[in-house]
């Protein structure tokens, strides 16, 4: 539980910091500091157990089915990293409090920082690998926020974007790698994974899993060739650089190498991949660091180089190399964080970080200069400082490496060369900044920083000295525990003494020191040579930018190809894609069996006549489509043929519905024609028409084939249940209606809701629409009075039609009819009044708010469903009983009928909203456009 709290306190702290900021800027800093100190205290309370060799694990199931547990683990390695994160975090908070200017939002900065801290703690304390990955990606996201903290600066935004793209992309690789690993081991828990080295390394998936996991680690730890994001991330405020880009986040990659060391290391693949990446990074970055003029740029490349060193050590795969790697993680975090802080002080107090302008600062800030010099000496590996010790161990390990046979000299030689560069750039940092003449054109006169800003640097530099002089007393136990956590095995023999006698490693150190000084003395010639050899910047950023640009251009091209704003093209692509997929599927699974064996429908003259009528009417619609009125007549014929087909094939309900919908649809389309052009000239050329005909023909053939295959293949239906249960269960003999209102009532409820939404949409679309009906004459309709005969007949017809509707409605449960059909019939009867007597006349007499009708219908349907809860039945359980009515006789009453009444009301309301709203537009009540319709908007 304590373990969980350590991670949660900073994460929740991100919420508390802005709250505390209500008490002023310092409130945020105090809150952040107090929370970090609390978490650190909790961690220290657990430390004795870890030092005693225990591994603390606490676990909660999250999604156990996929192996995801909310589980945390504290062992030596986790303890070391958590100490670094919280300890240095505390110092950075103190430092940042004085570093940030009054213009910067302190609450925002500390909230981001707490989020990052929590994420980072999650990475190092996770027991579950998927959980680890979630926190891993969270560190990428929060570091994006921190790097882009000065969002008004474009270099900060670009740097943050690049860092996110590279580390986030690496995180995706890591996800894939972890999933493969989980597939191999069968668990994502570290305890299991770390104990399955043999199983993992002999598995076929080992190589891909390893490569993917290493991609994650290398991108995060800025290993070559993914190193380029780190220097650009230096656009962040310096406390962020000190925290993320030296002590913690970039260490997540090497943490992962250390964490997975027992499970993945040892084989040749691991050795060559990790060693090569580490070695190249070590030498290359040390060389580049020498030529950076920006202090933070120099430190950034130096960090990359040191990360390469640590990676190289883990690549060796031997226990002693791992111990050296852990040791260097500790030392690097300490001296590099203090160096970044010193760089921030110089920037803050002198106004620039350019080493060509900064010189002779010793006079102005001697105290800071001494601190920075000690830290830089540790970076160079000067004896009696912590950096020297781990570098010595590193040199010893390069010499002890047995693997490369005749190439064995290569790694020690390159390591010494990197040492030479390291001494040279450390010397440059000290000499160029603090000595080397007078400062040139500084924006302000440099001076010592506030007292409290120096304290974090002092603490860290003191640690450098203490560890360097008394390693066994200070860092010894922590190193032993952490290294034990890495190896998950007994520790090898090693000694932390300062002096091991005169051996090869000492010679290498001496060569590095002397060579570095010589290099620095010759720097002017070197700079000239470097300038000649490399005309421009190193290409990584250009390559990255080029890749991003290419990606954007490609996607823009594809988007434009598919989505150029032409609906016609989308339609064609859609149909074309459907045909292609259909052909592909047919080719994959064998063509449909076009045999006559399954045929069962007897040939009948009536049916043939209907079908031929259907085909001819369809053809007519297409041929006449540019003359809208005849085309609509043809469309009506198609609809009638469809109704007849329903009649012929024993579906009376469908026929009734189709017939009434047909009437309503045609009236609607005719109304629309009152506003839209009635004739159209041919828009597309013959090429386009042929293409469309081809597409349409292809789709038609496909559907015909599919229908044929369906009709002739063996058939099994689940309708037996409905047929059996309709009378005993639903109380009705019209199975279709019983299915609609009873068995699948919930579906029907959803459908009438959709209809109601469509009606509301139509209402909204017609609001404030200014459109002029077509002028009487060639296209428009004469405003003549409707025929008297129609007017006279339609009025007595209304009650008759309503009666028919009630009849259809009541009998619907047992005979063809029901709410849908009855609703449509009422709708048609009412629309008849509009047609026969005019909008004005009808409107005056029919003062019904159709939206209320829809609402009542929907509520009624819903209540029928809810009512069954009252009697303890599931939603929409129905019941029925029989009553005896005088004269009528036995009469059924079913609760489903109330539901059907709801359907009925909704359908009436919707039909009337659609038609009456449209009808109103053309009547005298319509809003009149002031001007020509083209200019009205």
């Amino acid at each position, binding site marked *: 539980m304590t373990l969980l709290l350590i991670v949660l306190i900073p994460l929740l702290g991100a919420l508390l910091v802005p709250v505390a900021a209500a008490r002023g800027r310092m409130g945020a800093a105090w809150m952040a500091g107090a929370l970090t100190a609390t978490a650190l205290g909790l961690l220290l309370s657990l430390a004795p157990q870890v030092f005693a060799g225990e591994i603390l694990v606490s676990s909660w199931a999250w999604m156990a089915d996929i192996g995801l547990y909310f589980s945390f683990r504290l062992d030596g390695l986790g303890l070391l990293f958590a100490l670094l994160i919280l300890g240095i975090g505390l110092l950075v908070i103190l430092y940042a409090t004085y570093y940030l200017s009054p213009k910067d939002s302190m609450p925002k900065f500390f909230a981001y920082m707490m989020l990052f801290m929590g994420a980072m703690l999650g990475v190092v304390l996770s027991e579950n690998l998927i959980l680890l990955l979630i926190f891993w990606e969270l560190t990428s996201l929060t570091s994006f926020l921190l790097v882009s903290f000065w969002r008004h600066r474009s270099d900060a935004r670009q740097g943050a974007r690049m860092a996110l793209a590279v580390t986030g992309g690496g995180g995706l690789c890591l996800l894939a790698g972890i999933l493969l690993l989980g597939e191999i081991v069968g668990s994502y828990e570290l305890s299991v994974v770390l104990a399955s080295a043999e199983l993992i390394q002999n598995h076929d998936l080992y190589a891909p899993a390893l490569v993917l996991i290493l991609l994650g680690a290398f991108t995060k730890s800025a290993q070559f060739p993914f190193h380029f994001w780190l220097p650009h991330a230096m656009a962040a405020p310096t406390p962020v650089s000190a925290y993320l880009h030296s002590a913690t986040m970039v260490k997540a990659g090497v943490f992962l190498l250390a964490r997975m060391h027992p499970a993945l290391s040892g084989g040749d693949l691991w050795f060559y991949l990790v060693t090569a990446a580490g070695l190249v990074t070590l030498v290359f970055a040390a060389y580049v660091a020498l030529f950076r003029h920006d202090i933070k740029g120099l430190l950034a490349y130096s960090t990359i180089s040191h990360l390469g060193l640590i990676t190289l050590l883990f690549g060796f795969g031997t226990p002693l190399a791992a111990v050296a790697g852990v040791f260097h993680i500790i030392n690097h975090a300490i001296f590099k964080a203090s160096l970044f802080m010193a760089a921030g002080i110089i920037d803050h107090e002198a106004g620039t970080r350019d080493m060509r302008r900064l010189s002779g600062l010793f006079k102005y800030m001697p105290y800071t200069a001494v601190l920075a010099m000690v830290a830089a000496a540790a970076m160079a590996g000067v004896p009696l400082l912590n950096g020297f010790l781990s570098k010595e161990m590193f040199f010893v390990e390069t010499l002890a490496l047995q693997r490369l046979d005749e190439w064995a000299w290569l790694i020690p030689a390159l390591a010494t060369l990197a040492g030479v560069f390291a001494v040279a750039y450390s010397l440059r940092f000290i000499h160029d900044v603090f000595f080397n003449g007078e400062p040139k054109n500084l924006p302000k006169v440099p001076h010592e920083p506030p007292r409290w800003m120096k304290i974090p640097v002092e603490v860290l530099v003191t640690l450098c000295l203490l560890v360097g002089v008394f390693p066994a007393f200070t860092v010894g136990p922590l190193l032993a525990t952490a290294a034990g956590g890495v190896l998950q095995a007994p520790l090898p023999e090693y000694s932390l003494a300062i002096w091991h006698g005169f051996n090869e490693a000492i010679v290498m150190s001496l060569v590095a020191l002397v060579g570095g000084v010589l290099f620095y003395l010759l720097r002017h010639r070197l700079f000239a040579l470097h300038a000649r050899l490399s005309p421009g910047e190193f290409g990584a950023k250009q390559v990255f930018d080029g890749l991003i640009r290419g990606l954007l251009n490609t996607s823009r091209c594809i988007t434009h190809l598919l989505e150029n704003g032409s609906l016609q093209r989308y339609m064609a692509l859609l149909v074309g894609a459907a045909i292609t997929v259909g052909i592909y599927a047919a080719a994959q699974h064998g063509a449909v069996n076009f045999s006559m064996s399954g045929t069962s*429908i007897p040939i009948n003259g009536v049916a043939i006549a209907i079908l031929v009528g259907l085909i001819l009417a369809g053809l007519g619609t*297409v041929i006449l489509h540019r003359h809208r009125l005849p085309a609509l007549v043809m469309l009506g014929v198609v609809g009638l043929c469809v109704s007849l087909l329903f009649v012929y094939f024993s579906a009376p309900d469908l026929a009734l519905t189709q017939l009434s919908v047909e009437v309503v649809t045609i009236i609607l389309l005719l109304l*629309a024609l009152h506003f839209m052009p009635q004739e159209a000239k041919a828009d597309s050329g013959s090429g386009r028409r042929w293409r469309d005909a081809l597409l349409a023909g292809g789709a038609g053939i496909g559907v015909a*084939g599919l229908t044929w295959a369906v009709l002739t293949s063996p058939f099994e239906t689940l309708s037996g249940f409905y047929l059996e249960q309709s009378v005993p269960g639903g109380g009705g003999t019209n199975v279709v209606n019983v299915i609609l209102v009873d068995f699948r009532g919930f579906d029907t409820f959803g459908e009438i809701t959709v209809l109601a939404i469509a009606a509301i*949409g139509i209402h909204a679309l017609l609001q404030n629409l200014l459109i002029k009906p077509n002028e009487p004459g060639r296209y428009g309709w004469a405003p003549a009075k409707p025929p008297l005969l129609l007017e006279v007949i339609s009025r007595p017809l209304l009650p008759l039609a309503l009666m028919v509707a009630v009849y259809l409605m009541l009998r619907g449960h047992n005979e*063809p009819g029901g709410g849908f059909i009855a609703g449509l019939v009422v709708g048609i009867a009412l629309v008849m009044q509009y047609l026969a007597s005019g909008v004005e006349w009808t409107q005056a007499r029919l003062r019904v708010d159709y939206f209320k009708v829809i609402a009542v219908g929907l509520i009624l349907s819903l209540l029928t469903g809810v009512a069954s809860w009252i009697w303890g039945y599931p939603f929409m359980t129905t019941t029925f009983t029989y009553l005896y009515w005088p004269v009528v006789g036995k009469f059924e009453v079913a609760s489903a009928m109330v539901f059907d009444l709801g359907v009925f009301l909704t359908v009436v309301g919707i039909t009337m909203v659609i038609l009456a709203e449209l009808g109103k537009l053309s009547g005298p009540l319509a809003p009149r456009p002031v001007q020509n319709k083209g200019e009205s908007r």
Partner: protein
Amino acid sequence: MEILISTAIGFLVACGIYLMLRARTMDVVIGLTLLSYAVNLFLFASGRLTSNAAALISPDAVVYADPLPQALVLTAIVIGFGMTAFLVVLAIRAFGDLGNDHVDGEAGK
């Protein structure tokens, strides 16, 4: 008989899609209506087609028409009407606001 039914459905689909590929909104509406007829018929046919089958439960019925596709198609018809209506009104609105009835809002794209 199956072959004629399949042909009719396929032909309706072809007519509907051809019209939906036209450039004027009214043609698209008509095409969509044709297409929904075809889809409804296809759904209906998936329950197999029988003439003279009983649609209601009765003691003397021998063969019943499959009621499930019928129930599905019934709601599909009504929803299809709602969709057509929405589309028509959208077309009118577009015509009113844009001053033309091209599907892309302007001719010649």
